[in-house]
Every structure is written in structure tokens, then in C-alpha cells.
């Protein structure tokens, strides 16, 4: 059972490096208000991963904050991969910033693993603003090679680290067990449990019996055990994936834009994953081939230690085409006329089980797929979900946010009391902006409210947007709102009323700076 000898290239701080900014500038990449990557200069100033954006800015006022954009990272990484194309015939991209090369052929050609690693390190370094920012490691299997690449960055000048054949178990044994979760594929929860059980090093994990790991932790435990023992994630495949699992699609007319090709890719990926799932399989390596009308063939191998899902495959198709289009010397420009997906390495699917007869999961998946389809029709920002917030006025309490920006599990209605909010029941129709109106008393003169909240006369008639006057049957108010009085620009003073018109039509009416507005309707 010999693991495939593998070389891994690990670009340090790829989210930052891909920005092409000057070395020495403090930069932090944030996602969802948390720092996910930092430049060396920012780290020196105390900015660490996981900090809130404000905290990062407090520690280092000069820090440049950039939003996380994995599409850009993938596009820029294509530049690195394309120079490696000249060295090795087969490059597996694990994620933007990390790729793996099976070394057997290239090593023989270049005269050994060490020569190959030096060469890879040199050509990749030429592509980066900081030549010592790329770590290269060679070991038996992608996991120890990744660890070696990371470790090589810690040495001065970052020379490649080559672990001799058969020595990988000894290399990984003294490493802390948290590397199983990062860069490894195991979950944080599992590694936390290992920590509590006193399994601090990979050697401790490897010392346990594989059968015990399976009994206690399931498939993930077996995976952790294999990795800790310096073995490949799974025993080498005993059979080639059957040919009919590959799927392809001809695009007619050819897709000229990335989003068109990506949309077709999503459909293709859904069919591809369904075909695998029908046989109880999951793909850990997928070959994506795109042919263009200019007779160019773009082929890449994408690898993921967990199995690749349909969305992940579609995303990789987009990265691949996007990266090719952004190449300065792309040969044979033209539209993408054919897409092919081929599983390169399959294993038994150990993923989640759906409910019988299509349970709640199936419904959620269906809705999410539809959301993606609708986004392609009307634009990503027009498909939204309501998100409940605190607030006084009905318009403030809820915002419609694009589906993509909603973390589906995070929406929780905030039921804590909000003093001064418009009382329940809430109006069912909210006008943004509010509709202008006029309110007069029985004598026909405008109704006003004094600074102390005293009404000049009882409101008798209402007109909305210059329409005919309607009698006010009953009303309540005024309720005074003096909001943000500490801030001159956003300070607002308002008086709110509820007014009921004939036919049980009820409005929420506001008086602000002498003008009346219908803010919402209780329809």
C-alpha cells in the first residue's frame, strides 16, 4: 500500500498575495466582518485571523481592509498553475493558493525530487511579489506533502522540504493533532475532542487501533487515523471509475461570457453528482475540460479531500474558465462550446442521508437551486430574503437582503423588546419612500403638532398624493419620536398617528417638519 509520491505548492497568505500589493503593506482580508487572512506587516502590528474588522483597525490603524473574494483568488492562481504546466503534465488544484503534482514522471525527467522541487519553487517564486512566499514540500501523499510545504516556509529562505520515500509517518508523528483540521480535511469538533482526550500529537492518534477509531468516531475517525499514520486518505482505488460517469455538454450557441458558461456548468454538475450519487459514490478528484471555438482545450484537475458537491464543482468550472479568460495570451479566443466533467478518483460516499421520500432537506435544496436559477434570470441582487432586525418604524425592522449574503442558518427573528417601536400588529404594506399626504381639521385648516406634542385640532380629513379628501373615522396619536438627537445629521423628530378611513382602511401617518406622510397601510 504505497501512497502516491506528491509535491505540494503552498502559497503563504494567498488571499493577500493575490491582491498584488506591495510587500510590507499591512493588509487584512475580511469575510463576514472577521479577518480571514493577513499580510506579514499586519501580523507584526498584531492583526490576527478571527479578529473583528474594528478590532483589527484599532490595533493597526493603517491596515488596508479588503473583502474576501475567492473568485479573484482563483483567477490569479491560474497564472501560477499555467507556469507549472510547463513542468508537469498533471496538476491538481486543491484550492486557490494550493496545488499538488504527482511527482513520478517529472522527478525522473528533472533528475530527482529535490531537483524538481527546486525548479518548481523557482518558477512559482518568479510569479509572486515575494519570492520566498511559496512553500514546496514533497512526501508520500498529499497530506504529508502539504504539511512539509507549510513547514518549509518557516525556514529562512524557504527552501523546499523533501521527505524521503517511506519516512512520511515519522515526519508527521510529532506534529500537533490540530493539523488534521487545518490543512487536513477533518472537522474542528473532532480535533477538539482529540485535544480533550489528551491526543496532542499525530503519533498519539496513530497509536490507537483503526477499528476503535471507526467504532468511536465513524468514517471521519478512520480518515484521521490514516492521515495521522502517514497513509493516504483512503486505500488506493481498487477499480477505475466506470467511463459512463463522465458527463459532457455541447453549448450551442457557444458561451461567450463566464456567467453563461458557469450557468451551463451548474446544470452539468448537478447531473454529474446525481449520477455518482446513484451509485453511492463521491468524487474527490474531478477533471474539468472546456473546449473553445478557437480549438483551445482547457483542462484542469480539481481535488478536494472532502467529496466535491455539485455547487463546488460548478464553482471550479467558473474559476477555470475565468482564469483562462484573464490570461494575457490566451490562444484561440472564442466561446466555450463544450464542457466535460470526468471523475478521476471516486470513493464511497459517506455523506449525509436524506430523509425518506425526500424530506425537508430536499425541499430546501430545491428552493436553493431555484434561487440560483432566478438569479441568472433577473440578477443576483433581485432575489432576496427578508431579514429581521430591531427598529422602531416598520421599514427599519426588516430588510430584504440578496439571497447570497444570507447565511441560511443565521436568520433568527429578534424577539427582544425594542422600546418605542410601533406597536403590534404591524402594517402589512410599507411604502419606501413614504407617500406625501395632507391632513386637515373640521374647519379645513392644516393640523399641526407643537413641540410639546400638543395637537392643534382633531384631524378630520386625509388626502394621499393629492387625491380627493377622505373622512377620518377614528384616529389615535400623536406618538412623538425624537430619534438620534445626539447626531445633527441623522436627528429626526416625528409624530406618528394611526388613522382609520371608511371601509376599514387604516394608515400609519407621520408628521415630520410640517409635512404629512403615509408611511404604511394596515391592509
Amino acid at each position: 500500500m504505497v501512497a502516491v509520491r506528491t509535491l505540494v505548492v503552498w502559497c503563504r497568505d494567498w488571499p493577500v498575495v493575490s491582491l498584488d500589493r506591495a510587500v510590507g503593506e499591512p493588509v487584512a482580508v475580511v469575510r463576514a466582518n472577521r479577518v480571514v487572512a493577513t499580510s506579514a506587516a499586519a501580523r507584526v502590528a498584531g492583526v490576527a485571523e478571527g479578529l473583528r474588522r474594528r478590532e483589527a483597525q484599532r490595533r493597526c490603524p493603517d491596515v488596508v481592509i479588503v473583502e474576501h473574494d475567492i473568485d479573484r483568488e482563483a483567477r490569479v492562481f491560474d497564472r501560477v498553475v499555467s507556469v507549472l504546466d510547463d513542468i508537469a503534465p498533471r496538476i491538481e488544484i486543491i484550492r486557490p493558493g494550493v496545488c499538488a503534482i504527482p511527482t513520478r514522471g517529472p522527478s525522473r525527467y528533472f533528475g530527482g525530487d529535490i531537483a524538481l522541487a527546486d525548479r518548481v519553487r523557482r518558477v512559482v517564486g518568479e510569479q509572486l511579489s515575494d519570492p520566498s512566499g511559496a512553500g514546496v514540500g514533497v512526501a508520500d501523499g498529499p497530506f504529508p506533502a502539504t504539511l512539509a510545504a507549510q513547514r518549509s516556509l518557516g525556514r529562512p529562505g524557504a527552501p523546499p522540504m523533501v521527505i524521503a520515500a517511506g519516512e512520511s509517518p515519522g515526519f508527521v508523528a510529532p506534529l500537533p493533532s490540530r493539523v488534521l483540521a487545518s490543512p487536513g480535511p477533518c472537522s474542528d469538533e473532532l480535533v477538539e475532542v482529540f485535544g480533550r482526550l489528551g491526543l496532542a500529537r499525530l503519533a498519539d492518534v496513530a497509536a490507537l487501533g483503526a477499528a476503535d477509531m471507526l467504532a468511536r468516531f465513524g468514517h471521519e475517525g478512520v480518515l484521521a487515523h490514516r492521515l495521522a499514520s502517514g497513509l493516504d486518505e483512503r486505500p488506493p482505488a481498487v477499480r477505475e471509475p466506470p467511463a459512463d460517469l463522465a458527463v459532457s455538454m455541447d453549448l450551442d450557441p457557444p458561451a461567450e461570457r463566464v456567467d453563461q458558461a458557469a450557468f451551463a456548468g451548474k446544470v452539468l454538475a448537478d447531473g454529474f453528482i446525481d449520477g455518482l450519487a446513484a451509485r453511492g459514490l463521491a468524487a474527490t478528484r474531478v477533471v474539468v475540460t472546456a473546449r473553445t471555438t478557437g480549438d483551445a482545450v482547457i483542462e484542469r484537475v480539481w481535488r478536494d479531500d472532502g467529496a466535491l458537491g455539485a455547487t463546488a464543482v460548478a464553482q471550479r468550472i467558473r474559476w477555470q474558465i475565468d482564469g483562462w479568460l484573464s490570461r494575457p495570451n490566451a490562444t484561440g479566443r472564442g466561446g466555450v462550446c463544450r464542457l466535460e466533467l470526468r471523475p478521476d478518483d471516486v470513493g464511497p460516499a459517506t455523506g449525509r442521508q436524506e430523509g425518506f421520500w425526500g424530506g425537508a432537506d430536499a425541499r430546501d435544496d430545491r428552493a436553493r437551486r431555484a434561487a440560483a436559477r432566478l438569479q441568472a434570470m433577473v440578477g443576483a441582487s433581485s432575489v432576496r430574503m427578508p431579514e429581521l432586525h430591531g427598529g422602531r418604524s416598520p421599514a427599519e425592522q426588516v430588510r430584504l437582503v440578496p439571497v447570497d449574503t444570507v447565511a441560511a442558518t443565521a436568520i433568527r427573528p429578534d424577539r427582544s423588546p425594542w422600546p418605542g417601536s410601533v406597536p403590534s400588529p404591524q402594517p402589512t404594506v410599507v411604502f419606501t419612500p413614504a407617500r406625501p399626504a395632507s391632513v386637515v381639521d373640521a374647519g379645513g385648516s392644516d393640523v399641526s403638532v407643537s413641540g410639546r406634542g400638543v395637537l392643534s385640532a382633531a384631524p378630520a380629513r386625509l388626502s394621499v398624493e393629492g387625491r380627493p379628501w377622505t373622512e377620518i373615522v377614528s384616529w389615535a396619536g400623536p406618538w412623538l419620536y425624537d430619534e438620534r438627537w445626539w447626531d445633527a445629521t441623522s436627528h429626526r423628530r416625528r409624530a406618528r398617528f394611526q388613522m382609520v378611513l371608511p371601509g376599514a382602511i387604516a394608515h400609519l401617518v407621520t408628521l415630520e417638519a410640517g409635512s404629512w406622510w403615509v408611511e404604511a397601510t394596515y391592509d
Partner: protein
Amino acid sequence: MPDAAPSDPPLAALAVELRQMAGAVRPTALAVERTLPVHESLGPLFPMGGLARSSTIGVSGPGATSLALAVAAGPSAAGSWVGFVGAERVGWAAAAELGVAAERTLVVCDVGVGQWPTVTAALIDAVDVVVASPTHPVRINDARRLAARARERGAVLVVVQPASSWPMAFDVGLEVTAAEWCGVGSGHGRLSARRVTVSATGRRGAARPRDTTMWLPAATGEPACVTAGPERHLRAV
């Protein structure tokens, strides 16, 4: 001695056989399973006590928005997704109070007249309840196609304020015939609850007119039954 076992059936034939078997052992869909749950106060309006899948429902009258949200709230609370087209002005705080689950709500905004039928059809494909309020007259062909789509997919299409814009008859048409706000006087109190009478007319099973009186909304913001309502009298038939 039985015949010699036949050679292994090819995979495709096996798959067909399996599919047939799955069809045979699948539980029969009872009428109750072909309905989506509604709030108990709306139950008397529907012939099967719930929203029949594959149907179209029209909602009109003063309070149509509340009524449409209340209709969608039942399935939404039970785990269905609800899609809205042309609902930019809906007060989502009120929708949440009426029982619509925000985490299972899709809202498609800024839909042009030309795209309206395609977008609505795409939503019908994906979610159990679609609430549409067309701002323009819908062409009869589009309306037929959408109704057929809903029938095929087992979805419910709710059309709000359709008086002038929907050219077809609904399976169930709900209309608020009387409404009265409680809790507000002349310069005192606040809007606390609305008592409405809703009448339902329709086709086929829903052909017999029904009506009910309910709180829409009650003081908590939810719909509620009127407990001390008028007594039901037996009528000679």
C-alpha cells in the same frame, strides 16, 4: 426442480424493476397529504380543511395582503418554502407576525412585465406556495400556463387583488367582505385587532359558498378564530 436461474439481468432492467417496486410500496397519497396545512381560523374556508395542492387561489377585498400572508403562513410554518413576486411593499414584520417564516421565504424584486411569467413559473417549480401580485393585466395564455404548471408541480398559486389583472376563474376565490378595526377611538387607543368576514367561492369541491369571521390580525399580530362568534343555524335545504 425449477428452471436454471436466468443470467444476471442487465443493470438497466434492474433499475426499472426497482423503480416499479418503489412505486408499489410508496404509501398512497391520501387527500390530506395532497393538502398543505392552513391556520385553524382559515380552515372553514377550504373544502378539505387545508390548501389543496395544485390549485389557484385569488385573494381580494380590504385586507387582501393580510389574508394572502395568512394563507401562506400555514404551509410556511410547517416547513414549506414560500415565494413572492411583486411584493416589494409587503411589510415583512407583519408577515413574520402572521406566521410566515423568514428563513424559508424567497422574494423576487424588480421583475419586468416581460419577465413576470417566466419568473413566476420558475418559482412554482421550486416552492410549495407562490404569492403573486401582478401590477399589470396578465394575458390569458400566461395565466393558463401558470395554472397548469402549478397543477403539475403540486404547488399553490395565490394571486393578490386580481380583480382587474387575472383573466381566469380561481379554484378558490377568497374575498374580505366586511372588516372592522378595534381599539382605536377619536384620539385615544391604538389599532389592536381587525375583525373580518371572509367569503370563499370556487369551482368543483369548493363550489358551495362558505364564509367565516376571524381576527386578522388579532392583538398579537397572528390570525385567530373568533370564539364568541355568531351561532351556526341549521337551514332547511
